[in-house]
């Protein structure tokens, strides 16, 4: 495409008063020979925007540079078809005139640099093309793995929205744990009475839906492909079948924590010590009898948090056990009004309206709730159990004697349970150096749980964060896993009760539907939903170094036998982390590439050393640090005018060549500001910020090679709320740079 660039400078919002606009225009017209450069006192107004639109229509402008407010503002006005027009916005308002003194040389220089950077970027961008046309037809079937309450609900919810569903359950019948419950605690007003589980009705509904195909007694042998194009091999009754699906909901639920590990609480040692799920079986039979002698037990003790909230077992809380025990206490009391039930707890956790049920149970004269810590348990001659409880509210030790003890055990996510057959690890690297390198790379926890058996280069299952729960940004994007198009729901995601599971299932089903719909249009999914750009690889320069295939947080790349990356575009979230990983710079988006950012760095006008105007390039994550600097502008916080900001999709985009380019150009310092990483990571692309830090280690080598000081590079974490810290961050870094002295490459 022949590019015709139009530069439009807004002079409103103090821009015109603060800057020498004719001089600024000259940067466009003289330095960059831009054919059209116009200014307007209110570019976002009707007249201003139609000025641009008419140049696009009548003058053939197809590349628009808007130098006005932040690209985060007035997006509805400055909106063009990305398949026809390349648009770049230069932030003169928030990042220049609102935070730097008016009519000063340094302010003007800042504005001119930003305009240069914007023009070069726009010149190098290409219009977007969705990739869908080249692809096979996208399948919109939803695969649900797991036929418990979550899986069945997800299947029904997707089916009711008009989608075909394949439901795979490993057991011989649907229903999961709910099927084994006698009743459930009250889920609807007035929240007082136990309710039937309703599971058989749900199973019936699933079976009667014509657009749900159910496989029971089945397992997934292999999941190949990518969103819209998953080929899933299901084995059932010794036969294998491959079905194509578009998206996957993993609702494989949980297992009770292995009570045999709780010998200290008497399980396996004393016959009358049972688990909650065993009480459900008793309730279903209508006989609350002791395993030791078959006699009806008259006194019961529930031990809450058995193996939960315990660093030696499950450190977390399973959320449902308090309510389950309160419910089972009611089973016993409703059956036998003479029975006594003790509940020994740390905290009773009945949130929301469940509190009403708790209150009702508390009023039952036969149920005794005691806060304390169980320190010992023994058996007497009648096979009854004596429990020592410490740290009670009374401050003293007490003993509780009961004919039966029930351990309220917690939930272990199925995804956290290693399958017996251990999947072999990747073959050892031959080169020692490579092994060294890999040690530093932040590794993922992938537990071979034999659920999806993904044919992904990075491993067979979803990466976990802690305790075997698949990783997601659990506050803001709860459903997104580290594998695009695969969403977790229910207790495999986090411990929750059946009501929450049903809500969760609906949400995950929606995410799966979004996945197939957006994928069919060649568009990215969350968090860059709708983005049509995608990475293109210039394979003839690939050196098979595997960095892209290893570092993609979403497992986008597979590998062939020669270690060439095989992109699966529908798995791609368009974060650009692979672009940062590639030492050969072969990965590019049409509107975002190593070359584009390099060119922006090189467009900065670096004054001679004797002018004593240092230059800093600051790479800012566009999700947090960049908006944070906008807010600093809005608050009119003033900061150093020597800093040139370049927004990135993610800090993980930083390619080492940018650092080399900047230093080679005479830039004195480089700041990288990304999101917080670690267990409480805030990075939208999970690993980007962490990877940037890892790569900065390499920069030390680069610096050594260039005989430059490593203090010239600083990498920081910043959250959006910390806008007030930015001026200090810049000043502090500038101070350091002054100590280090000017870049010796300046002027070369």
């Amino acid at each position: 495409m022949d590019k015709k660039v139009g530069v439009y400078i807004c002079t409103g919002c103090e821009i015109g008063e603060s800057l020498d606009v004719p001089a600024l225009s000259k940067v466009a017209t003289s330095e960059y020979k831009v054919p059209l450069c116009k200014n307007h006192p209110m570019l976002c107004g009707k007249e201003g925007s139609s000025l641009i639109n008419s140049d696009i229509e009548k003058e053939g402008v197809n590349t628009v540079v808007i130098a006005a407010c932040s690209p985060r503002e007035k997006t509805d006005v400055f909106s063009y078809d990305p398949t026809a027009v390349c648009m770049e916005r230069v932030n003169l308002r928030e990042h220049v005139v609102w935070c730097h003194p008016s009519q000063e040389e340094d302010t003007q220089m800042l504005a001119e640099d930003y305009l240069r950077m914007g023009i070069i970027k726009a010149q190098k961008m290409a219009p977007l093309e969705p990739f869908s046309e080249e692809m096979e037809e996208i399948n919109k079937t939803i695969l649900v793995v797991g036929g418990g309450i979550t899986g069945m609900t997800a299947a029904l919810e997707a089916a009711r929205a008009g989608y075909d569903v394949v439901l795979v359950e490993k057991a011989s019948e649907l229903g999961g744990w709910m099927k084994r419950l006698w009743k459930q605690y009250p889920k609807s007003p007035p929240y007082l009475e136990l309710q039937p589980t309703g599971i058989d009705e749900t199973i019936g509904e699933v079976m009667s839906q014509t657009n749900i195909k159910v496989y029971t007694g089945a397992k997934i042998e292999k999941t190949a492909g990518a969103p819209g194009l998953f080929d899933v091999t299901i084995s059932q009754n010794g036969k294998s079948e491959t079905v194509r699906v578009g998206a996957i909901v993993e609702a494989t639920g949980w297992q009770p924590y292995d009570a045999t590990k709780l010998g200290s609480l008497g399980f396996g040692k004393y016959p009358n010590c049972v688990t909650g799920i065993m009480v459900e079986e008793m309730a279903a039979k209508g006989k609350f009898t002791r395993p030791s002698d078959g006699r009806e037990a008259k006194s019961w003790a529930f031990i809450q948090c058995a193996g939960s909230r315990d660093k030696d077992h499950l450190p977390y809380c399973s959320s449902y056990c308090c309510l389950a025990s309160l419910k089972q206490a009611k089973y016993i009391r409703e059956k036998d009004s003479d029975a006594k039930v003790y509940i020994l707890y740390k905290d009773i956790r009945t949130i929301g309206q469940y509190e009403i049920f708790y209150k009702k149970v508390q009023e039952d004269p036969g149920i005794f709730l005691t806060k304390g810590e169980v320190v010992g348990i023994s058996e007497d001659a009648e096979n009854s159990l004596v429990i020592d409880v410490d740290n009670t509210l009374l401050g003293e030790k007490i003993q509780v004697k009961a004919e039966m003890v029930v351990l309220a055990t917690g939930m272990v996510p199925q995804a956290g349970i290693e399958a017996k057959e251990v999947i072999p690890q990747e073959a050892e690297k031959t080169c020692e150096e490579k092994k060294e390198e890999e040690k530093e790379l932040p590794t993922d926890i992938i537990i071979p749980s034999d659920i999806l058996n993904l044919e992904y280069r990075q491993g067979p299952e979803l990466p976990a964060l802690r305790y075997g729960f698949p990783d997601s940004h659990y506050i803001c994007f709860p459903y997104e896993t580290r594998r695009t198009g695969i969403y977790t729901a229910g207790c495999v995601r986090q411990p929750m009760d059946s009501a929450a599971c049903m809500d969760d299932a609906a949400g995950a089903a929606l995410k799966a539907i979004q996945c197939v719909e957006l994928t069919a249009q060649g568009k990215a999914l969350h968090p860059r939903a709708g983005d049509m750009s995608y990475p293109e690889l210039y394979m003839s320069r690939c050196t098979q170094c595997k960095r892209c295939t290893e570092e993609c947080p979403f497992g986008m790349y597979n590998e062939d036998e020669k270690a060439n990356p095989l992109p699966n575009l529908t798995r791609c979230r368009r974060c650009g982390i692979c672009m940062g990983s590639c030492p050969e710079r072969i990965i590019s988006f049409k509107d975002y590439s190593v070359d584009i950012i390099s060119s922006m760095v090189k467009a900065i006008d670096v004054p001679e050393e004797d002018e004593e105007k240092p230059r800093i390039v600051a790479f800012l994550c566009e999700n947090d640090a960049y908006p944070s600097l906008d807010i600093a502008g809005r608050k009119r916080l003033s900061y150093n005018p020597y800093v040139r900001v370049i927004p990135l999709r993610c800090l993980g985009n930083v390619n080492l060549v940018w650092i080399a380019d900047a230093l080679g150009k005479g830039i004195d310092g480089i700041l990288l500001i990304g999101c917080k990483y670690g267990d409480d990571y805030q990075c939208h692309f999970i690993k980007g910020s962490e990877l940037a830090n890892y790569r900065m280690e390499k920069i030390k080598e680069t610096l050594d090679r260039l005989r430059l000081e490593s203090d010239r590079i600083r990498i920081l974490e910043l959250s959006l709320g910390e806008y007030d810290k930015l001026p200090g961050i810049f000043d502090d870094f500038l101070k350091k740079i002054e100590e280090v002295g000017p870049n010796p490459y300046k002027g070369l």
Partner: protein
Amino acid sequence: MEREVSDGDVLVIGGGISGLTTAVEAAEAGCKVILVEKEPSLGGKVARNNKYYTKLCPPSCGLEINFKRIKRNPDIQCLTLAEVEAISGGEGNYEATIRVNPRYVNDNCTACGECAKVCATEIPNEFNYGMDKRKAAYLPHLMAFPMRYVIAPEIIGTDEAKKCLKACKYNAIDLDMKQESLKVKVGAVVVATGWDPYDATKIDNLGFGKCPNVITNVMMERLASPSGPTKGKIVRPSDGKEVKNIIFAQCAGSRDENHLPYCSGVCCLASLKQATYVREQYPDAKATIFYIDVRALGKFEDFYTKVAGDENVSLIKGKAAKVEEDPATGDVVVEVEDTMKGDKIRVRAEMVVLATGMVPRAPGSNINVTYDEFGFIVSDPSRRGIYGAGCVRRPTGVAQSVQDATGAALKAIQSIVRR
């Protein structure tokens, strides 16, 4: 100026995190959405929070990504300062009447702030729960969406308003703006009207409204926020003194037959989080949390363990029974009842935070939904087409609201499929 609103698939009432999530999730699945928010900006309660538990990350980050999704998506129409007055029709075919209150500022606004510069009148800052004042020409908050100023009705008809009008270079102020009534057709409705903090003045014994140094948990979020009334410095309202000794009184009006019988599910974690605010600002500060049960469900337990491990944070089981001021020092004395022992202990602190619960904000009788006795919307399979999402269904935190709202988006889509 005539507002143009086209009919849509889904009407979402409420632009807090639940409504916002429902709107973007439905739109990204291909629906046309109309999002109606009563306040001048989207964001609701989360916009007022300093940090989310348990990552301790700023809600502005979550808002930024959601606003970005809205900006990118032409299928979402946002109406602010708007309220749904009535809904008629049935599933697949509703007509909603929406009242849009005047902002006195139109789409030309560039948020340059010139109007606020000339405006001298100040009004109570409801965004900061009345803890300070703001100009009568104001930006709702730093992350406001839409990013446009508001002229408060209080100054309409005064010279002050005319001064604002004159200061605006972009013809963005329209003092003649009138209330409008719009009608739109939609296939489904999601009610995400959220919650109000329980009115702490109703809890007679806990001193709120009487002792200046007794505040509520929502106020604490603003006090700790860099954009709050004290620019993030946690100080006492009475004298601006740094708070080195603080008490959190859990279940203030919650799990209480006389107030809210239910548990709001978030207050324990909120107070644990707020204890970290104080501890971070003042390394020698002490925080005491009086609780009935600490309810940190699921993986949030880790956060509880971490905060409880701080030797300057004490957790004591017991419900605060009485809060009184020591007039000489402005300190607050809390009497705690240990129900088991029957003892009472008295503890002094510089400030008390009442962990008040959530009251569902009912959308009004003109919307046909089923409520429980506390005013939460109950799922009713016989009434399809209008769905609740978030805290209007049950008291819940941000993560679960997002989860719930995503599910509500699917329910709405099903109603459209059945159309």
